[in-house]
């Protein structure tokens, strides 16, 4: 803060404006919190039926849905990240055929809504069999996992391709110069770095995957939104089950971002030269990002 007072005394008009912007931001953010907080307090005190909220029946139904969602998320996550690695590798393949197939795959699954893809899999696919011949009796959950995997595999694939692209060319050259084959150089040198580069984007996508499970309500998966819809239509009380819904999704997504943060910390190999530009607040006079260039 010493630097601020110094430049202030040297008549920094720009700095004054910076501080004004900072104040306006604080007022806006504070006002927002007050407004939302007030609304929330009002809803929680007038709209929520606490005996219903705590009733074991509702708790049990949400708990069942919650664990089902976690199972679907874990399986789809593992599968979509694995698929994404393959797609990412396909995208950078030196083979034109593989590259184009991977690109087409990504274009299709990013270019159509997840809901459409789920309908294709859930409603469309069983019709490819003669009536009664389709091998799955409960197709909703397998269809959900397949849909989420295929959809998010495309996003993870793009994240990984971006991560690979961000590894400087010199890394591949150095590895190849030591006599490594391209595949070996990718595995030993490029992919570990690409993984780290892509981690934030992959984590982001996996959090979206969690929220995308809410779409599964329309293909008859008894997940969290389905429980809400059921309770809402029986009790004619939306706010009470909505509290449950909110808490449960946040429980999954927040632990997931903790996990991603942990992974990011673990793959930080103590290189200060690769600090991703962290913009410090408007007020700070000289930014330490300047050393980077």
């Amino acid at each position, binding site marked *: 803060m010493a630097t601020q007072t110094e430049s202030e005394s040297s008549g920094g008009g720009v700095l004054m404006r910076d501080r004004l912007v900072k104040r306006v931001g604080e007022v806006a953010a504070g006002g927002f919190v007050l407004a939302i907080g007030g609304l929330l307090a009002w809803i929680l005190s007038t709209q929520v039926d606490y005996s219903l909220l705590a009733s074991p029946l509702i708790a049990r139904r949400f708990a069942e849905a919650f664990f089902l969602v976690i199972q679907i998320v874990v399986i789809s996550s593992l599968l979509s990240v694995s698929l994404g690695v393959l797609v990412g590798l396909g995208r950078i393949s030196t083979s034109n055929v593989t590259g184009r197939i991977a690109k087409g795959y990504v274009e299709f699954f990013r270019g159509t809504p997840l809901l459409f893809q789920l309908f294709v899999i859930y409603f469309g696919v069983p019709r490819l069999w003669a009536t009664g011949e389709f091998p799955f009796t409960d197709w909703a959950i397998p269809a959900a996992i397949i849909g989420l995997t295929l959809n998010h595999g495309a996003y993870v694939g793009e994240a990984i391709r971006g991560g690979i692209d961000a590894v400087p060319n*010199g890394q591949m050259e*150095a590895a190849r*110069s030591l*006599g490594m084959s391209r595949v070996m150089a990718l595995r*030993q040198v490029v992919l570990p770095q690409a993984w780290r580069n892509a981690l934030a984007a992959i984590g982001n996508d996996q959090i979206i995957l969690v929220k995308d499970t809410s779409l599964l309500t329309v293909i008859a998966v008894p997940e969290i939104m389905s429980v809400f819809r059921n309770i809402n239509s029986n009790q004619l009380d939306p706010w009470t089950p909505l509290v449950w819904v909110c808490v449960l999704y946040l429980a999954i997504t927040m632990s997931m971002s903790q996990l991603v943060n942990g992974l990011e910390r673990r793959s930080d190999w103590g*290189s*200060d030269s690769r600090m991703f530009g962290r913009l410090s607040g408007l007020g700070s006079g000289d930014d330490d990002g300047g050393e980077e260039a």
Partner: protein
Amino acid sequence: MTGPLVEFDGVDKSFGDTQVLYDVDVDVDEGEVVVVIGPSGSGKSTLLRCANRLEEIQGGDIRLDGRSVIETDVNEIRQQIGMVFQSFNLFPHKTALENVALAPEKVKGEPEGEAKRAASDLLDQVGLADQAESHPGALSGGQQQRVAIARALAMEPRVMLFDEVTSALDPELVGEVLDVIEGLAADGMTMVLVTHEMGFAREVGDRIVLMADGRVVERTETRSFFDEPSTDRGQQFLSRLL
């Protein structure tokens, strides 16, 4: 051995329609240090990169110990040609020791313990025994470049190529890297250096190759080059430096 260890024989190289090397002939004898100098864009680095096939050539041939580099398996030939880059290119996710031990382990299939021991000796040789467990991000540019030299040496190459290895360094860090290269020269390592450090070229080079516009314009003993360059181009180049 009879012929030269490394032989550039009428090398032509183009990037698309732009030809960057014209009929380049350079011989490097075993144990010799050849320094390639010349103005920016004269094709010095490209010449080095052709030798280990980071760039493919369009005409002529490059031979290592009489064997065509072009016709030999690329991964095999690169094991015999060590390369050090201007921008170090250390692997940031591995420690200094792992950087050096990686290729012997994965490419040559040496057992991990053995590769690590050899790597440790090499780090000692470049004066970095105490930094074995550091990641590149924690090392200075000079230290990183010395690790990079150790990494190339770990494959026990027959020849070392140095591509402007001090150009990216702060002036006060240049000396420590040049010392290491000088030590290698004293040990009889065959080397081709591209450099802008004329004092160093004069000290360590057995022969100087002056390139300009993709052609070799002068090829001579180091001493005679610096004392009395035989070509106008050489005189011009030196007069601009001194």
